[in-house]
């Protein structure tokens, strides 16, 4: 600070005397900042390495045929991942089927139709939704939604569908905020042009704005999938935790399932460290890491770090 004022007062010469000490301080600070930036890459690498260290043995010790088998039965050391994969897939597909149309329509409303004062109310509300802890939504799914679904005629209220509904709600903020970004990025001239040649607002949205925002919407869907597949607590509480593959058919969504995430959360507390079961749970972690890494790397290329913020549902 003294250097700074003396420079302005008497010119560059006076500043030089105290400069070296200051430079060392700045050199340290600037390098710490650089280090902080690079640390993010190191952390991602460390996460992968630690997963590999604890989970790698599972892929070496369990024969591939068993790993892709249909039985998850840890008590007998049978670790077939298929039921868990199917469980995650069912719940995720269900969630995305519900959340994508709703989220997209909401984004269209926010971006194209709603007057500013409504936007001022709706955006914070959606951010609030993004902030509700998953355990609270899981709890509500458990005490309120599951009984509703059971009363509607399902054998149990704890089904893949229950999980899908809760998950759809949880991934809505991500989908809404990223698709709204995509709509916002469409140049205003496109809309003006369409309206000027006599198109109605709906025609403009449907034929001009949406096609122009296509790639951004695809990313919104991808990140929505990434969010749904990784959700743990709410899903664990409402999907019934049955590690078997429901009979194929339209009714399978109303069967209890168990996802990859829920399996880790439910079983890790009870396994002996270093056992095959322990390694396999980390192995499931590797599978989850790889899936979400692929989704985010692909999407992140296009939306950049903004995506990190939008994933939290920030508008």
């Amino acid at each position, binding site marked *: 600070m003294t*250097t*700074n004022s003396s*420079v*302005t007062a008497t010119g560059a010469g006076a*500043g030089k005397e105290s400069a070296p000490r200051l*430079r060392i301080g*700045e050199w340290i600070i*600037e390098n710490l*900042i650089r280090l*902080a*930036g690079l*640390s*993010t890459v190191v*952390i991602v690498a*460390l*996460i992968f390495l*630690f*997963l590999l260290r*604890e989970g790698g043995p599972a892929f070496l010790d369990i024969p591939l045929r068993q790993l892709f088998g249909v039985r998850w039965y840890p008590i007998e050391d049978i670790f077939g991942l298929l039921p868990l994969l199917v469980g995650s897939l069912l719940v995720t597909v269900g969630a995305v089927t519900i959340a994508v149309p*709703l989220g997209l*329509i*909401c984004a269209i*409303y926010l971006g194209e*139709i*709603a007057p500013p004062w409504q936007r001022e109310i*709706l955006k914070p509300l*959606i951010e*609030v*939704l993004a*902030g*509700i*802890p*998953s*355990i*609270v*939504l899981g*709890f509500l799914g*458990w005490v309120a939604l599951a009984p509703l679904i059971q009363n509607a005629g399902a054998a149990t209220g704890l089904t893949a569908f229950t999980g899908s509904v809760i998950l759809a*709600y949880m991934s*809505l903020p991500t989908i809404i905020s990223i698709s709204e970004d995509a709509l916002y990025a469409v140049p205003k001239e496109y809309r003006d042009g369409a309206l000027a040649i006599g198109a109605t607002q*709906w*025609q403009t949205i449907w034929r001009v704005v949406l096609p122009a925002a296509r790639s951004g919407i695809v990313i919104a869907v991808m990140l929505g999938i990434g969010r749904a597949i*990784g959700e*743990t*607590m709410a899903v664990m*509480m409402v999907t019934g935790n049955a590690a078997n593959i429901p009979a194929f058919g339209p009714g399978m969504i109303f069967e209890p399932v168990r996802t990859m*995430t829920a399996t*880790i*959360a439910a079983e890790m507390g009870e396994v002996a460290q270093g056992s095959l079961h322990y390694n396999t*749970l*980390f192995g499931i*972690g590797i599978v*989850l890491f790889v899936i979400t890494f692929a989704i*985010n*790397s692909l999407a*992140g290329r296009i939306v950049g770090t903004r995506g*990190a*913020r939008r*994933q939290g549902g*920030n508008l």
Partner: protein
Amino acid sequence: MNRQQTNRLAKALITSVAILVVVPIALVILYVFYNGIGTISWEFITAPPSNGMREGGIWPALLGTIFLTFGTAILSFPLAIGAAIYLSEYAADNRSTRMIRLAIVNLAGIPSIVYGLFGLGAFVLFMQFGTSILAGSLTLGILTLPVVISTAEEAIASVPQQFRTVSLSLGATRWQTIRHQVLPHALPGILTGIILGLGRAAGETAPILFTVAAFYLPEPPQSIFDQTMALPYHLYVISTQVPGMPLGIQYGTALVLLFIVLSLTLAATFVRTSMRRRREW
């Protein structure tokens, strides 16, 4: 049906779907409030659970969540803000910067349970912190990095370029410019990121399952190497693991957790809005 009618119909449909999506958000909050408010009392907040959790309060869990949230703040925010300054002020548009950005996007997308696994493997076992507040805070700290970094970076980058140019032209060094010109103006935005990070840390369950959370501990923790109860995990325990649990206590616990997390989210929104209003450029 002519196109004007189609237009009206489409807009009406879009509007009603948007309402259909947003109204349940408010309903969820009101529902928890309505069912939980009857349980909230001074005793509920300040007493430990008793009679196998079926009576008493939530004090140890609440305290644990406060400890974990502060631990997260201390451990992760200096790093997050450093990274944000680096990305906004120092990073050139090159390969390594792109890698950093990719890393941040991926950190945001990694499932919270995978953070839990990492915390278990790295902090609890490898670094031998045991299941402890330290291990839990470190895990939560890493989990909150992306949201804090990206919010803070946006705030720093939105400070007008002229501020930097003028400061540098008066002879200030790069760091002096950042320290005295850029950061003060970016402070509200950085604060928004920090508060959002705190809210995230307070509400997460999966990352603390194997790194810190205790099923039941009547006494508060004595050091950062102790386990602690935590509110989100406590809600999980009392809603699924304890048979015959009175609903009132469950809703009351959910309400307290929701209140903490939502006040942080709203505080962040408030700071950001008032910052936008006050901005002079």
